[in-house]
């Protein structure tokens, strides 16, 4: 149906809802990146295969559908049965028949697939409805509201979930200025990392005299440990489009692009499908919903360069050039794509817009803290139990995210640090865990909230090696245009490597600190300016660990290979596990006899340590 007047939308929504409501039971199969990697596409096929041959009351084929990432990736592949919210974890293709026969036909539970929460005394109890699982209970989902709930390829699902009603409200009852005022009043700040007030950006763009203005979406997601934007683009593409269309109305734009990195092929496909169906139904193109508004969106594919997430580089890349940033004497909102005024916002920022319009600026501003309103999505990963997508109100503590939602460190090891903000961010230690998560607090503590990557590290993570890792990413990603970034980060990385090899002196460390200051003040764009952060923040909180590498030539975490040796102690039961796991056959021994590592062959990969169940491998 083509929506050529605003009134028609409500009728269509009723129709979409009725159709969904008529499905007594719904089966949602998560096809987010984590579950897909676990083979969930095969699970969906199996459901369709069996159900196409077998009729079950209350379950239609249409009601078995794919969704984007449901959030709790660590328990994937996930299958959820609505309306009860039955949450089946670690599902395999072979379980499908049982789910159909037991749950869909008889209405009983498949116990073994239920989520088990650990009790204080080490026993478990099963939780049926996912809303009751601590991982979900403490979250508040705004930008992720539909991700994992709807089929991204069905616009009818989005409509039934209230989609495009914010656009209808905007077009029927708000002037462009009123839209900008609402966004300003909501206090929304950009979710791409910078935290710039979105309303102010829009207002600036709208004021500039120009025949053409662009509205662009930044889906580059350059942080090498983050996947929130990807999950929104794959799982709820229409919410991004709706946010962009509202922005186009507010600032007076007719044309826009979504910049997606080449590594996200499914995001490109789902966005393109969404664009096509939005156009077909009258939400994009000429005379949107029968009004005077004309706006269209194209996808620009990035080429896998971190620096292309930076606004001026991104715009060059969209224009088909090499993505080198320029000095920003004039901001890109004034002189952006093709030198025209341009609004560039992050995926999550745009996905939040429709909710603000619908629920009102005051409602949004009441969530979060005074200076950081609303919620923020994070991809929680690393050495944490509950890896996945998390969205929480701003101002909750890091501890709440990592321990209450995340379940704490993997294998109950000792928590050591949390890294946020990707290569531009930093690491915070345990005593900073009670800091509220918002734009300003984390920056003051020497890290940053960033775009939403959150990586948990335990006592087996070496902070020097982490700094070296991020510096390595930045050296590779520096575009090479300015000297402080190109040469400075290169030297910083070299010196950091020297530390991990136990060859550095304290003078080297001083040199690194000086160099960091120069790189920060003299670099052209944000990549260089914040480039030393991973080093500076780890040095600030983990100086001891640096000194251990430099003075004692030791790596306390047991990671830096030049500085450690592996030995088997007398806890060894002779179980042969490490012998099987060693990739270089450096371990010898017989069953029930103490095993021995041949130091000449050992590559210090740590495999024996990981597989040993008896704490019999020492790292020194």
């Amino acid at each position, binding site marked *: 149906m083509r929506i050529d007047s605003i009134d028609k939308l409500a009728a269509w929504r009723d129709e979409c809802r009725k159709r969904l409501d008529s499905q007594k039971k719904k089966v949602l199969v998560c096809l987010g990146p984590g579950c897909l990697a676990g083979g969930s596409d095969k699970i969906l096929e199996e459901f369709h295969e069996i159900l196409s041959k077998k009729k079950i009351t209350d379950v239609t084929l249409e009601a078995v559908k794919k969704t984007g990432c449901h959030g709790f990736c660590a328990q994937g592949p996930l299958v959820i049965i609505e309306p009860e919210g039955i949450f089946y974890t670690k599902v395999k293709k072979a379980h499908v028949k049982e789910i159909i026969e037991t749950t869909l036909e008889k209405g009983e539970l498949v116990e073994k697939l239920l989520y088990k929460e650990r009790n204080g005394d080490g026993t478990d109890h099963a939780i049926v409805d996912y809303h009751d699982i601590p991982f979900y209970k403490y979250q508040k989902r705004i930008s992720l509201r539909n991700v994992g709930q709807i089929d991204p390829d069905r616009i009818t699902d989005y409509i039934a979930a209230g989609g495009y009603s914010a656009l209808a409200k905007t077009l029927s009852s708000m002037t462009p200025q009123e839209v900008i005022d609402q966004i300003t009043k909501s206090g929304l700040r950009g979710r791409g990392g910078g935290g710039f007030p979105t309303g102010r950006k829009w207002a600036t763009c709208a004021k500039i005299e120009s025949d053409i203005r662009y509205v662009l979406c930044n889906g580059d997601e350059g942080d090498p440990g983050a996947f929130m934007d990807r999950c929104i683009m794959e799982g709820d593409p229409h919410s991004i489009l709706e946010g962009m269309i509202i922005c186009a109305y507010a600032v007076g734009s007719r044309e826009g692009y979504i910049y997606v990195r080449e590594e996200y092929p499914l995001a490109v496909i789902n966005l393109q499908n969404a664009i096509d169906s939005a156009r077909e139904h009258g939400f994009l193109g000429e005379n949107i919903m029968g009004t005077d508004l004309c706006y269209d969106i194209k996808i620009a594919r990035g080429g896998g360069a971190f620096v292309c997430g930076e606004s001026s580089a991104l715009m060059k890349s969209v224009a088909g050039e090499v993505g080198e940033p320029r000095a920003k004497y004039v901001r890109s909102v004034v002189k952006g794509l093709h030198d025209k005024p341009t609004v560039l916002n992050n995926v999550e920022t745009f996905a939040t817009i429709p909710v603000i319009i619908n629920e009102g600026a005051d409602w949004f501003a009441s969530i979060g803290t005074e200076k950081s309103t609303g919620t923020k999505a994070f991809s929680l990963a690393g050495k944490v139990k509950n*890896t996945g997508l998390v969205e929480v109100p701003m101002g909750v503590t890091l501890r709440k995210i990592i321990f209450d939602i995340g379940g704490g460190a993997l294998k109950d090891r000792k928590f050591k640090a949390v890294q946020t903000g990707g290569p531009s961010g930093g690491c915070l230690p345990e005593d900073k865990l009670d800091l509220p998560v918002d734009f300003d607090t984390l920056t003051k503590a020497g890290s940053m909230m960033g775009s939403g990557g959150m990586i948990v590290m335990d006592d087996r993570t070496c902070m020097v090696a982490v700094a070296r890792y991020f510096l390595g990413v930045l050296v590779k990603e520096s575009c090479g245009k300015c000297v402080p970034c190109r040469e400075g980060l290169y030297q910083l990385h070299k010196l950091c490597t020297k530390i991990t090899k136990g060859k550095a002196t304290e003078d080297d460390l001083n040199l690194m600190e000086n160099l960091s200051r120069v790189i920060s003040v003299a670099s052209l764009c944000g990549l260089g300016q914040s480039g030393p952060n991973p080093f500076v923040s780890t040095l600030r909180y983990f100086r001891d660990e640096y000194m251990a590498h430099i003075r004692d030539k030791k790596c306390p975490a047991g990671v830096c290979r030049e500085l450690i040796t592996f030995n088997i102690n007398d806890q060894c039961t002779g179980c042969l596990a490490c012998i099987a796991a060693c990739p270089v056959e450096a371990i010898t021994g017989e069953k029930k006899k103490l095993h021995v590592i041949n130091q000449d062959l050992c590559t210090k990969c740590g495999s024996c340590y990981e597989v040993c169940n008896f704490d019999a491998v020492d790292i020194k």
Partner: protein
Amino acid sequence: MTQTDMTKLDKIFNNNPQSPGSLITVLQDIQREFRYLPREALEKTAEILNVPLSKVYSASTFYAVFSLKPRGEKIVRVCKGTACHIKGADIILEQLESGLGIKAGETTKDLKYTIELVNCVGACALAPVMLVNEKYYGNVRCDRVMKLVEKD
């Protein structure tokens, strides 16, 4: 380049506006079709889009997805995202490099295997992650790397 290659190339040019602004898209399409950017294709691109060859070369070397050398039948990608890194992606890579006798970014002489590095593929729960063509392998153990690569 063979005649069929030329036809494929012409099709790519016809599918895109023939102006300098299409440079990146055209290069992406060529990369997808040929799995790398052949020299003649770059020369042709420069001519048709009216961009200096030096600029075409600059774009081809700037973006990580482009390759100037032919790539293997099986592309083995090791995730070097943060989560995979702290769960030992380095060691996976090392096993792979010594097993195949090439470094990351290189292709075996028989054009069978190419090793590439990628950033987070969104499957951090399964870190460390490795992909062989489109197939994901999670919780990869370093003693299993070569078995996974050589499978089918």
